[in-house]
């Protein structure tokens, strides 16, 4: 991924910055310009909101057939996490044996290296998740 392309999203990827609709209160991640529920009513009323980083596993998979840049990590766990604010996101789940992952388990965000551009390129950082507590 090109450096500017990754850099443009670092607020969300580093700090879990989403948005809250000023009209209905629905939280989105990443931040949206328009609320999917309120549509045009919400334009100009979307406020920034930092997620608290805690949530629960809704579903998960263990990836064995990985893209080139994730080859060294396989097998690794990916999960869809429902954050306590109600919004869902997709992330890697660390520090847990794949057999011990359960739907409903509590997890929290942690700041990690996501990948890098080739062997000497810039490093991408962002959120991954691990068991809470």
């Amino acid at each position: 991924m090109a450096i500017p392309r990754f850099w443009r999203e670092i607020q969300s990827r580093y700090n879990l910055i989403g948005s809250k609709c000023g009209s209905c209160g629905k939280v989105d991640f990443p931040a949206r310009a328009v609320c999917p529920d309120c549509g045009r009513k919400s334009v100009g009323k979307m406020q920034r909101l930092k997620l608290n980083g805690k949530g629960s596993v809704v579903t998960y998979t263990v990836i064995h057939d990985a893209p080139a840049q994730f080859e060294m990590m396989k097998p690794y766990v990916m999960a869809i996490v429902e954050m306590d604010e109600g919004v869902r996101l997709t992330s890697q789940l660390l520090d847990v044996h794949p057999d011990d992952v359960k739907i409903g388990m509590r997890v929290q965000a942690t700041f990690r290296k996501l990948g890098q551009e080739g062997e000497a390129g810039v490093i991408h950082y962002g959120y991954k998740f691990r068991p809470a507590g």
Partner: protein
Amino acid sequence: MREVAVIGVGQTEFGELWDRSFRDLGIEAGLKAIQDANVRSEDIDAVYIGNMSAGKFIDQEHVSALVADYAGLADMHLPTVRIEGGGACGAIALLQARLAIMSGLHDIVIVGGAEKMTDVGDVQAAEILSSTADQEWESVFGATFAGLYAMMARRHMHEYGTTREHMASVAVKNHKNGALNPEAQFQKEITMDTVLNSPWVAEPLGLFDCAPLSDGAAALVLCSMEKARKFTDAPIRIAGSGQASDFLAVHDRRDLTTMDATVVAGKRAFAEAKCEPKDVQVAEVHDNFTITEILAIEDLRFVEKGKGGPATMDGWTALNGKISVNPSGGLKARGQPVGATGVAQAVEIVRQLRGQAGKRQVVGATRGLTHTLGGTGATAVVHLFERGS
């Protein structure tokens, strides 16, 4: 608005076709369809091509003009349109071509679908496929295309008690059908053990839960119903079409075990065709993974929500079962040249309704359906076809 019929179909064999180029495939399918319809090049008003990613697979964009050119139509200076919509692009091309005829603008339109996927390596091909998911908020974190479907499968298992055996029975059935299809990539039956013991791709999906990478092309000739009788005694009417979209990323969807785009596209198509799921005898549905066919037959209301797995295992969707699903072998066994998918599904349904499906013929089929997905379900297209009376 005018009625539209399919008057010609053509398809290449599907598979790892090292000796065939993108143009070879597109032209073979197109010429077969034109011959089948018995139209002349001067009868053709426009060409619509479904292609997912020739730019990434073979470094060639502008494939709409390319295909018309090499099909010998350059001198006709036809309008040519290439449609992109992930795996649904062929089905969208069919829908757009239909609209062009319905509107009265055109009388005869060629619809093609083609993909050449094996000129890149397997890992690169998988990454290209996953570019139809959300690159910024799914792929960048390590979610693969199979992984996203695997998470839907896991949730379906959790909510409805679906098992790996249920999913495996989709692959077993579709390989059994593919064995009867001389154009299929895999013309070989497999056992449930083969599926269950295949190496993991993304748990709970193994290698045999996944459709292959393929080369291939398919084509249709569409014609206004009023002119169709000039070319054929057996026009197949397109009775209804529906297209719908949804959130791009799986995690944003209302329900991880229902594809709302399929539900809505299906309702739109059935409403236009003024019929119900029970009136359909044969369906070609999107089975890029085994779980996808289970979701499709539920979301199209062929079976009750949550019962797709047991219904498949019990043979409801087998050839000449309660409803014959994927008699061609589906994406799983017929093969998955992405851009060709929606068009190849229509080719199969037309053959079934004409009674030209050979050993895999669905007895007494009068109404058929195609269901095609883009990405992980952010686009769905449903078409309904009827044998002309």
